């Protein structure tokens, strides 16, 4: 039977990446010296599964590689090998290497054999270099590719005259049946090899009264006429080897003497092979080892987006909801069939029910897209481990609230900004151990990564107990760069926010950890494009806290609908500060700077929606009749002049780019209750637009 194995590949890859993550976090949590055997077991199991699967699905490169890891881990598991930091590092490197291999295979690219060979050599060095179990463990490397149980090995040369075959004395022990084996099936197998004659010996069967039907009291004399080898015959009995006495004798003497049967894979050959590999590529390893650590996880990140794993509970809830909706629908259908006015009350109740169910259903569906933030957080222990080693700093990372759920899209997009912020904390925030001790702080720095829900938002905080930001230095730098004027009086908060300005960087020298050409301005822009914002609190000498607020979902937004002529627009509720009915006195025309509007003591620029979107329809309102919606975008306040406020509602965001094309000042569209389309305003975009 031919079965298309490629249909299992996707599941296999997902499983592998999950396994690798488990291995990675397990390895990172291994406390050298105090080994938790359950952790080692988990790591071992992951390697073991990857090996088994990759062998089965034909990815022999991966299978061979994981085999070595497995051997190493097996020795650790059994306590035959010490868990050392170098060993853990090598294993971590192997995780990266495997991830790279699997990604290449998944994308149907060639596996980078060079880097694989380096990692493999490092692994083998680790395996063979340390005392204890060096030689014999290397042997199974070549045993990994297909070990066939059922097939015979026709390598013996047996030439016979007369009748060819075997005389088999098969005497099962009483217990043979207890393992589910059945002599009848064995005989059926045997008869597949040739012509079988059985001769039953029942002399040991006790009298009926004493007979235990679960015991095997019979033995057999078998004659098999076949050209099968002894190994092939014994193979059939391999499962019951311990449960019977088995004697094999050839029916006729062969003329040529049989070659002695090699037991299994010939060990000596392999023993010489492994060290050769190790010595050849060992010097290269030291030089290039560090290279492929960082780039790979991000490479396979977008791949993960193609499918989503959902808790079955969520699906069950969803199915329940759908059931409710169907019931309500049929109830309404019944009312509608013979409608009379006295059924209005019933109808109203039904509609109210429908509304409730629809809302619940919507929530359940949204819930499916919710993933725990641990999907993002889980890679940071590794990042912190690697970078702190590189920087010779001592840092622990605490994760809080990993199970906080957030929309899948947010999970995918928040990763890069977070990486940047954590790198910053590692590089600039936490001081060198000596410096910390001198400042009276514990040698070990702490970075805390927290996530929690607040209102309709998720808040992610990065808290470090490092040196904090020097406001005087920040200000001086900004003045030097010409970003602010010397005379400007700024609040502490405003000074801290200077780091978000394009072209601002306080690091004296750019290191390869943080200074990657992406500034904090990009981080802020990315977060704002997700509909979020970012705040900093920092105290010199004590540490910094960076808080990111993000909407829970990107698919639905709380919006304020506003009327401009006959058109309806949606302003995201998060960016609205307040809305004011305007009077003539509040509007000022400033030459060259457009219109402004005096809100209490501040002058705000005005954007006329009617003009910016060129709306001609409806009654042209005079500028003094209407509503100013005060919004915040790009850190600045601004007033949108609209005709009327309509109402607040949750709107489902439809992508304009996917359905039409990108339009400046508009972030998307939605469909209103009456079927018409309303555009959702991109507040920061409009503010930018108005400045021009």
């Amino acid at each position, binding site marked *: 039977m031919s*079965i298309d194995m490629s249909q299992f590949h996707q599941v296999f890859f997902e499983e592998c990446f999950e396994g690798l993550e488990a291995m990675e976090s397990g390895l990172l949590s291994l406390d050298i010296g105090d080994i938790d055997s359950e952790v080692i077991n988990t790591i071992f199991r992951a390697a*073991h599964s990857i090996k088994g699967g990759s062998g089965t*699905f034909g990815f022999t490169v991966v299978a061979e590689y994981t085999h070595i890891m497995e051997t190493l881990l097996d020795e650790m598991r059994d306590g035959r090998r010490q868990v050392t930091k170098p060993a853990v590092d090598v294993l971590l490197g192997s995780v990266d290497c495997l991830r790279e291999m699997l990604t290449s295979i998944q994308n149907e690219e060639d596996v980078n054999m060079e880097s694989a060979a380096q990692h493999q050599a490092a692994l083998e060095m680790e395996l063979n270099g340390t005392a204890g179990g060096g030689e014999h463990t290397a042997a199974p490397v070549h045993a990994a590719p*297909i070990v066939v149980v059922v097939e015979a090995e026709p390598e013996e040369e047996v030439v016979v005259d007369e009748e060819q075959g075997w005389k088999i004395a098969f005497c099962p022990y009483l217990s043979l049946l*207890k*393992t*589910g084996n059945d002599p009848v099936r064995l005989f059926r197998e045997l008869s597949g090899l040739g012509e079988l004659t059985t001769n039953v010996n029942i002399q040991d069967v006790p009298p009926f009264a004493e007979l235990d039907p679960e015991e095997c009291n019979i033995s057999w004399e078998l004659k098999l006429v076949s050209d099968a080898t002894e190994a092939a015959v014994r193979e059939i009995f391999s*499962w019951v080897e311990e449960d019977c006495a088995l004697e094999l004798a050839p029916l006729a003497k062969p003329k040529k003497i049989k070659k002695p049967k090699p037991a299994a894979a010939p060990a000596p050959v392999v023993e010489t092979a492994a060290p050769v590999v190790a010595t050849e590529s060992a010097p290269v390893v030291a030089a290039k080892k560090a290279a492929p650590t960082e780039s790979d996880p991000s490479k396979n990140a977008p791949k993960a987006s193609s499918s989503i794993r959902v808790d079955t509970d969520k699906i069950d809830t969803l199915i329940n909801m759908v059931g409710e909706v169907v019931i309500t629908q049929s109830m309404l259908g019944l009312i509608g069939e013979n409608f009379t006015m006295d059924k209005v009350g019933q109808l109203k109740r039904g509609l109210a029910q429908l509304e409730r169910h629809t809302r619940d259903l919507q929530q359940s569906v949204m819930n499916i897209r919710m993933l725990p933030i641990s999907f993002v957080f889980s890679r940071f222990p590794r990042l912190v481990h690697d970078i702190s080693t590189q920087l010779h700093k001592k840092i622990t990372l605490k994760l809080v609230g990993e199970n906080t759920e957030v929309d899948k899209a947010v999970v995918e997009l928040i990763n890069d900004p977070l990486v940047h912020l954590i790198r910053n904390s590692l590089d600039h925030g936490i001081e060198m151990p000596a410096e910390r001790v001198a400042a009276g702080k514990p040698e070990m720095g702490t970075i805390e990564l927290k996530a929690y829900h607040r209102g309709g938002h998720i808040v992610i905080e990065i808290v470090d107990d490092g040196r904090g930001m020097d406001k005087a230095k920040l200000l001086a730098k900004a003045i030097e760069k010409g970003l602010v004027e010397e005379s400007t009086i700024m609040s502490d908060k405003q000074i801290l926010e200077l780091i978000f300005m394009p072209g601002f960087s306080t690091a004296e020298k750019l290191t390869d950890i943080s200074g990657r050409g992406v500034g904090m301005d990009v981080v802020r822009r990315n977060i704002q494009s997700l509909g979020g914002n970012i705040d900093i609190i920092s105290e010199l000498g004590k540490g910094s806290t960076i808080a990111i607020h993000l909407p829970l979902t990107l698919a639905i937004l709380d919006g304020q609908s506003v009327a401009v002529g006959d058109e309806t627009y949606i302003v995201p509720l998060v960016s609205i500060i307040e809305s004011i009915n305007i009077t003539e006195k509040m509007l000022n025309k400033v030459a060259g700077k457009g219109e402004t509007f005096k809100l209490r003591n501040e002058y705000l620029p005005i954007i006329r929606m009617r003009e910016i979107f060129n709306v001609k329809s409806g009654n042209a309102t005079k500028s003094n009749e209407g509503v100013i919606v005060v919004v915040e975008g790009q850190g600045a306040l601004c007033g949108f002049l609209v005709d009327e406020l309509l109402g607040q509602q949750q709107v489902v965001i439809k992508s304009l780019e996917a359905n039409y094309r990108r339009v400046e000042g508009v972030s998307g569209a939605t469909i209103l209750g009456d079927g018409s389309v309303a555009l959702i305003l991109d507040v920061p975009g409009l503010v930018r637009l108005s400045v021009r």
Partner: protein
Amino acid sequence: MASILAVDDSASMRKMVAFTLKTAGYDVEEAEDGVDALEKAKARTFDCIVTDVNMPNKDGIALIRDLRQLPQYKHVPMLMLTTESGMEKKMEGKEAGATGWMVKPFNPDQLLKTLLKVLG
């Protein structure tokens, strides 16, 4: 057709085994570890158990040992799928009551051929 319980914590392997067996016409149920399997095996009696060895919660050997205690599974064939081709695991499995074993990696044909040794 014979009913088979396929137990493996690795989804891809389990799916492969289950799909192969289903295609061959067997009635297959899947379980993701020993605990899950034991529960399913109690709910109905299978004609054969095919289980991975290394699994979280309850491994294949413990599963076989537990199943053999149940009267309805006294003589049901139980196969272990293992990558540990060492005799040690096999013997441990035999002592627990395993009928036989298959060494991974194997292909669908080998799986079916092996099953014929204990079914039908």
